[in-house]
């Protein structure tokens, strides 16, 4: 049976990893710090997938980000998606060459749809994750780009239907309002969208504990739950959460005990 997934999202900005709350970033540590304090490689054995996002403002140093990516994914044996600031085929190639199995596109979905199509044609739709950030304004879900700073004026549902036409493999849906709060996912959105959206859906923004992950995994139309919460899920947090979830009747992959 095709399994559901738990994904960790690491937020990178100018050489450091961050905790995000409503898209405001708080610096946590660089890669050395992450490896020392959070034993990242061993945490990764509790994950199905890893997403690494470059949220640096302004001109993003793709090469420097790629070097961190390469170091980070060494000894991480799960699919890796990376993105943030991809504006050309060359940007994407740099990430693929440094350990990414898929790329994540956000602003380009609005600003450069020809690039999205070109990437999907070149690397296959399964290699392209469409990341969409939204915020509730006047009771409407409105899409934001550029790290959540730029209002597109587009309503979420209409936007997602357009994005689906770009031959992308997955949708990564992140609620700016819930992001980093630990209050749980915006699960209402899925119920409203699931009838019109056919692409596999990853839900992000708001998970604070394993109950939230579980809540998301139980929704039929959700393929994967993501969390970027370094404080709550690193260390033993994630391995313990996965154990608890696996003990229930949830369709997740099980992996051989780490000691080979």
């Amino acid at each position, binding site marked *: *049976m*095709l*399994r559901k*997934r738990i994904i960790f999202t690491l937020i990178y900005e100018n050489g450091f990893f961050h905790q995000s709350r409503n898209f405001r970033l708080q610096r946590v540590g660089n890669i050395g710090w992450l490896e020392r304090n959070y034993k990242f490689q061993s945490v990764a*054995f509790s994950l*199905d997938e890893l997403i690494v996002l470059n949220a640096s403002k302004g001109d993003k140093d793709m090469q420097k980000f790629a070097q961190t990516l*390469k170091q980070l*994914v*060494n*000894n991480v*044996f*799960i*699919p890796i998606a990376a993105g943030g600031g991809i504006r050309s085929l060359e940007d994407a190639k740099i990430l*693929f*060459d*440094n*350990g990414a*199995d898929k790329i994540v596109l956000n602003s380009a979905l609005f600003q450069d749809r020809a690039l999205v199509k070109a990437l999907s044609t070149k690397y*296959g*739709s*399964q290699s392209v994750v469409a990341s969409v950030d939204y915020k509730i304004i006047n009771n409407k879900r409105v899409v934001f780009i550029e790290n959540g700073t730029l209002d597109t004026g587009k309503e979420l549902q209409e936007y997602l239907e357009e994005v689906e036409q770009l031959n992308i*493999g*997955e949708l990564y849906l992140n609620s700016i309002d819930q992001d980093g709060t630990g209050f749980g996912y915006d699960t209402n959105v899925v119920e409203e969208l699931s009838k019109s959206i*056919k*692409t*596999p859906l990853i839900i992000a923004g708001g998970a604070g504990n394993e109950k939230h992950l579980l809540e998301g995994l139980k929704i039929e139309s959700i*393929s994967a739950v993501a969390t970027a919460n370094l404080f709550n899920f690193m260390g033993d947090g994630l391995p313990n959460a996965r154990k608890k979830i696996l003990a229930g009747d949830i369709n997740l*992959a*099980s*992996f*051989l*005990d*780490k000691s*080979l």
Partner: protein
Amino acid sequence: MKVVIVDYGMGNIHSITSALKYIGVDEVVVSHKSEDLQSADKLLLPGVGAFNQAMKNIQELQLDTMLKNLVLIEKKPILGICLGMQLLCESSDENGLHNGLGFIKGDVRKFEIAPLSVPHVGFNQVKFPENSRLYRGLDDKSDFYFTHSFRLQSSSYINAGVCKYGEEFIASFEIDNIAGTQFHPELSQTNGLKVLENFVKSF
């Protein structure tokens, strides 16, 4: 132990290289040179991309003749992964009908499983064949990571592992010195590392 990853210009070899090192292979070489392939204890054929382009690259580098010699005559162990597995078979209908290396009887055809979405992407379970060397030490129906739109069909005995997505399809084969996995062991956590370790030790 020397494992040579056959380099024909396609595929993300970053994870497979680090996975082989992680399980303790002391020498991992990425090459398409005859002398490197000759000196390998095991060969690994990776691959991501289109079948016809891959075969074209392989022929241009004269890897087809080299591999036929090493695998069919000298019986050097080889593991094909994803597209690499498909290339070991007779044909594929990706972008028109094309011949593969033909070491294993079977043909690669596009999934026809509407309304399920293609490609088949994610962790899925594999039912192991009897007397498997690849899956030693793993529980039957363990999970592995797949990402593909084409799958192998064969009416011959190829000691196949079987996965189900809309229909049953061949997830792996292991005959004598030749093995292949449609899934990516290098992206399948500890389960995949075990399969790689089994290939390196038991083939």
